[in-house]
């Protein structure tokens, strides 16, 4: 294409505001979500809010540490998607399995992996959750049943299927939480796995985190159907859509989905509508979307929604909320200090863990 024929793009970027979502507030809380609030109670709901604040603060600090060159390589941030990970994993048991893509910081923190072990991993230190050998995209935890952050789009999907197969093989009531993005749903391996999960009735919870963009490509430009739950129909698989910006919706949906499957295993596809505030990775200025669109999502910010509700409930006043934020900030600073002070791996670490003994 010659420069003369290049169409001006700047003004052509469409705005896609959040489609759904009544933002959380006591006044418009449905009976279902009211029951969810009661079930969670003050302590748990405040705890979940704290996790969301922690993810936000952790990611902001990561950005800063990247700019200071303490963190290198690829870095994919989770800001904007906090409600999804915290709500959905909050509805799971500690012995359930989870696997995700390279955008794995939020998932790892939601599973309760200490921020310092994650920050140390990002710094390439031996105290990191993967001993400094994985980096941002490859957080693993045997203790928390996190089967990895995975770098190949969709590559984690059959790994999660394997964990679901294990539950079926051993007759346990565990479920496997398989997170992936709207880009990954077009990979063949999703469709192969969906077919097998349905065929064998495996407890595989396929969660497509639809943050609207697979790198720079809006999902409507990559998928033949724009309601991603339709992809489940070809596999006779149940599906539902969830407002991924809404913590209570995410929690309540997963609680129902998981409970049913513990008694009677079957897979499900959940499309969580969400949004990432940053570009695909730290090196992406995200010029393919408009400022107005980002702002529209920030008006239904998942953290603000929960904070407002907690305030209305009288469970977290302004003073306590500020204290919570200070505590979280300190936790992240401690994580940075821990990462900073931790040693790099010894040279012999290079050749360890290539093969199991």
């Amino acid at each position, binding site marked *: 294409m010659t420069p003369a024929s290049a169409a001006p793009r700047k003004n052509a970027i469409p705005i896609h505001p959040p489609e759904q979502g009544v933002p959380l507030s006591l006044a418009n809380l449905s009976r279902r979500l009211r029951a969810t609030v009661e079930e969670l109670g003050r302590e748990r709901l405040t705890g979940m809010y704290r996790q969301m604040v922690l993810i936000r603060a952790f990611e902001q600090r990561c950005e800063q540490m990247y700019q200071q060159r303490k963190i290198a390589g690829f870095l994919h941030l989770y800001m904007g998607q906090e409600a999804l990970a915290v709500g959905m994993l909050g509805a799971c048991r500690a012995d359930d399995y989870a696997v995700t893509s390279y955008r794995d910081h939020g998932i790892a923190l939601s599973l309760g992996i200490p921020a310092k072990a994650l920050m140390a991993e990002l710094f390439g230190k031996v105290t990191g959750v993967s001993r400094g050998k994985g980096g941002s995209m490859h957080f693993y935890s045997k203790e928390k049943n996190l089967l990895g952050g995975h*770098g190949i789009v969709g590559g984690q999907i059959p790994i999660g299927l394997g964990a679901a197969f294990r539950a079926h093989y051993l007759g346990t009531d565990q479920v496997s939480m398989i997170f992936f993005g709207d880009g990954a749903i077009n990979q063949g391996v999703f469709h192969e796995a969906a077919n097998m999960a349905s065929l064998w009735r495996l407890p595989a919870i396929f969660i497509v985190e639809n943050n609207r963009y697979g790198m720079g490509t809006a999902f409507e430009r990559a998928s033949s159907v724009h309601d991603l739950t339709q992809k489940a129909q070809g596999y006779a698989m149940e599906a539902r859509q969830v407002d991924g910006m809404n913590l209570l919706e995410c929690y309540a949906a997963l609680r129902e989905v998981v409970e049913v499957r513990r008694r009677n295993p079957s897979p499900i596809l959940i499309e969580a509508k969400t949004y990432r505030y940053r570009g695909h990775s730290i090196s992406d200025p995200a010029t393919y979307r408009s400022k107005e669109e980002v702002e529209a999502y920030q008006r239904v910010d998942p953290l603000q929604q929960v904070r407002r509700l907690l305030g209305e409930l009288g469970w977290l006043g302004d003073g306590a909320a500020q204290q919570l934020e200070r505590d979280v900030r300190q936790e992240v600073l401690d994580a940075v200090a821990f990462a900073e002070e931790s040693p790099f791996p010894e040279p012999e670490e290079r050749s360890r863990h290539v093969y199991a003994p």
Partner: protein
Amino acid sequence: MTLQKVLFREALNQAMCEEMERDANVFLMGEEVGEYDGPYKVSQGMLARFGPKRVVDTPISENAFCGLGIGAAMTGLRPIVEFMSLNFSLVAFDQIVSNAAKTLYMSGGQFPVPMVMRGPGGAAAQVAAQHSNCVESYFAQVPGLKVVMPSTPYDAKGLLKTAIRDDNPVIFIENELLYGVSQEIPAEEYLIPLGQAHVRVEGSDVTLIAYSRMAHLLESGVLPELRKEGIRAELVDPRTIKPLDLEGLARSVRKTHRAVIVEEGHRFCGVGAEIADRLYSACFDDLDAPLVRVTQQENPLPYSKPLETASLPQVADVVQAVKQVLYRL
């Protein structure tokens, strides 16, 4: 010791059955392994014996069922994933290379992947280019994978049992044309460690290094020809490509001072190139002639018989190579 005469495919079947009896976490998964009784009858009778939970027929979805095996292995099971042909393992190349091979390392040692991926590899009889890949060099290049290529029923059984007990992902490559080969093997249980070469035929004039079907070609076709000319060749079978028993190969070369390396795969970046490089380093001063490699030609394998024959290593090619290292041309 009691001996039993078994076919290659039966030896593999015995290995899998014995290990499934021994460990409830071992299961077999693949295309046609159950109700069809195995595309090459390697899993014959196993569905009836172990049931559909442990002998699992899959859809034709190699990437996902291979990945499923990796996830199952990471969470404590010990899958045997059968590829109807190792050619189809290329559909699962991402899962094997990105996940099976690297997970233990990337997780800092937290998640071993105890898994066997097995099936026939190499050229069969006129099945053309897409069904004739020699995949061993592709996989052997990847740290984290082991690659095993037995040539006899005895080796097949002992090595497969060891591979199933290994805590690493093992690519176990059989050969369709060897499934019907028979041999007397012990009826009692035995294992063969990975990474031990075996001297199949002793000799003093030249070392021939070959594995899988090429080892048969040499033993049945090449050695008689050489004997006619008074050449006593030693045939060494590495049996496992990775880990490679360099010392086992070097011991023979130090004795004969000459070697020919034969492989069914292509020349460029082939397994023989690695073996040659290591032998040059390990026994340069022992060599009386440059090593010679015999390999498949550098074209996709054609269907037509004369063209296929011209592409694959033949008896005459190896005899010629032996004469070259002996300076008898």
